[in-house]
């Protein structure tokens, strides 16, 4: 598999009145061709910001302060944020689906007008051809009677249907990468499952890579091949999905997995929440940001700065000093 996108040391910061917020602090990751990658983290850990940075859609007071985004041998950050080169990447090569289907469609334009827009901009299609293609796409994403519904307005559609339209829109120009920013968070559970299945089929059919940004580990467990776990603006663990779920190594990931109820658990087993709150991203200490909440901490964690991602086992990387293979209770006993 060839590498499509590589992000190196991406730093995105927001200059606020109370200080500089580093929403992304040295985020590095890569996406291979036709791969489904999960990006997991709590609210405010910088996962959406990192994706918007790749598209250069960060608006003031936000600023991309460093790093590079290599796509097709080109650093996208060299392009002017709203210049023609960047615009020809957006939508055509890297497309994005947003979290809120209810507000992501313009209420005064019909579905057809919005779906054809991209085809006309990027593919230089004629209005008729674009309309035909739009109807076809709507059929593909499972909207019944697409040829009559194409002239409807967004408020005629339910949330799930709107998200289907968004997916159709995202895929319409055969992008290389589709970034789905919490695509199912705003939908109910049954619709979520239908949509995720449909999305997987679609990216397979269109030979597109998919980045699923989510806080739901269950979603990525089922669909993603590789996972990146983010905490406080940094990637703290990365690896193949099966490795991470079988043997999580970073204390944060371990904590996250403990919060999820499992069906094969003994009755009466309690869920273990992660104590405390995510840190304020203003004026972060040099030491590990997870330290105050960590149950594996060792003395070195207080003295040394946050380590870089280090391999623990082949493709599996973590950003931690502690030996997490031993349970914290056992280590204390010793």
């Amino acid at each position, binding site marked *: 598999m060839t590498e499509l996108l590589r992000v190196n040391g991406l730093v995105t910061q927001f200059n606020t009145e109370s200080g500089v917020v580093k929403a992304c602090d040295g985020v590095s990751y890569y996406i291979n061709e036709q791969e489904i990658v999960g990006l997991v983290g709590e609210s405010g850990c910088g996962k959406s910001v990192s994706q918007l940075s790749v598209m250069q*859609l960060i608006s003031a007071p936000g600023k991309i302060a460093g790093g590079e985004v290599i796509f097709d041998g080109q650093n996208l950050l060299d392009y002017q944020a709203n210049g023609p080169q960047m615009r*020809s990447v957006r*939508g055509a090569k890297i497309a994005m689906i947003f979290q809120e289907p209810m507000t992501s469609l313009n209420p*005064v334009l019909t579905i057809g007008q919005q779906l054809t827009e991209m085809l006309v901009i990027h593919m230089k299609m004629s209005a008729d051809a674009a309309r035909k293609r739009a109807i076809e796409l709507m059929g593909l994403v499972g909207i*019944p009677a697409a040829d009559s519904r194409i002239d409807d307005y967004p408020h005629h559609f339910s949330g799930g249907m709107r998200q289907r339209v968004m997916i159709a829109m995202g895929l319409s120009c055969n992008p290389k990468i589709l970034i789905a920013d919490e695509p199912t968070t705003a939908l109910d559970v049954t619709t979520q499952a239908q949509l995720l299945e449909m999305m997987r089929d679609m990216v397979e059919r269109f030979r597109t890579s998919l980045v699923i940004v989510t806080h739901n580990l269950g979603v990525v467990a089922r669909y993603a091949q590789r996972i990146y776990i983010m905490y406080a603006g940094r990637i703290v663990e990365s690896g193949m999905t099966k490795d991470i779920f079988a043997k999580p190594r970073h204390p944060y990931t371990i904590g996250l997995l403990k919060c999820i109820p499992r069906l094969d658990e003994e009755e009466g087993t309690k869920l273990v929440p992660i104590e405390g709150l995510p840190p304020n991203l203003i004026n972060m200490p040099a030491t590990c940001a997870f330290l105050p909440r960590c149950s594996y901490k060792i003395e070195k964690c207080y003295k040394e700065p946050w380590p870089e991602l280090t391999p623990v086992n082949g493709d599996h990387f973590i950003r931690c000093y502690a030996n997490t293979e031993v349970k914290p209770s056992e280590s204390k006993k010793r």
Partner: protein
Amino acid sequence: MVEQRKPEEGFQEAPPRVNEWRRFWKVFLQRKIVIFGLVVFLLLVITALFAGLLAPFDPYKNVLPDSLQQPSGKHWLGTDIQGRDTLSRLIFGTRTALMVGFITVITSAVIGVTLGLAAGFFGGIPSMVIMRIMDSLMCFPMLVLAMLLAAVLGGGIQNVIIALSVASLPGYARVMNGLTLSIRENDYIMAERSIGASNWRAMVRHILPNALPPMIVLVTLQLGGIILAEAGLSFLGIGIKPPGAAWGAMVTDGSRFLRTSPILTIAPGVAIMLVVFAFNMVGDGLRDALDPRLRGLL
């Protein structure tokens, strides 16, 4: 890729479709007073268009023997000091009033909306420059500014239009600026940019249509105000030059004969009132009908 996906089971049925136009008319024509306003508005437009056919006499021709006649079968609304038929002058005055009103409102709305949209969308320095100029224009009461400009430029219908356009510009720019600032923050603008749309496209195709309903209401409500302002300027003698027929000037001319021929003042006065009232009613009706909270209902 022609095969269609099977519609999933348990697919949520879409809410029943509402024809937006039908709903618009239904709400618009709900209140009788709005219908009245609309009828007056249409009558005025017809009067203005066919003034030449409707007027029984030449509004500009002096017939001195007939001067200051009371209303009669021949002159329904009497004649003025120069013997000109009041009704005919009133009818031609409609043309002046509507022409000034429409051209002014359209010019200032187009320029004001463009400025407000650009300022709101780009922010930063462009917004600073545009909005501060608009603010400084706003410091003057509209009529005072129009008077100043009309006095500098001189009278005549063209200069009245320019003066009133400049004076009403800041209103549009301010409202549009505010609308743009709020619409710009919507997710669909971000989504639009994420598919590679240019600033121009985002502004014209996505922000502008969303701002249109409130702008249409503002324009209709302003129309009455502009006609009133034109009458005011003409009343003060810095508007339409004689012998041009303007309601405001007719009120001034007639006021000298208020005791002997009150009809000379009352007739144009009532006309002004009627027009302003009609436009405000139509504006109110539009405001109700275009209320976004009602969208998709009824």
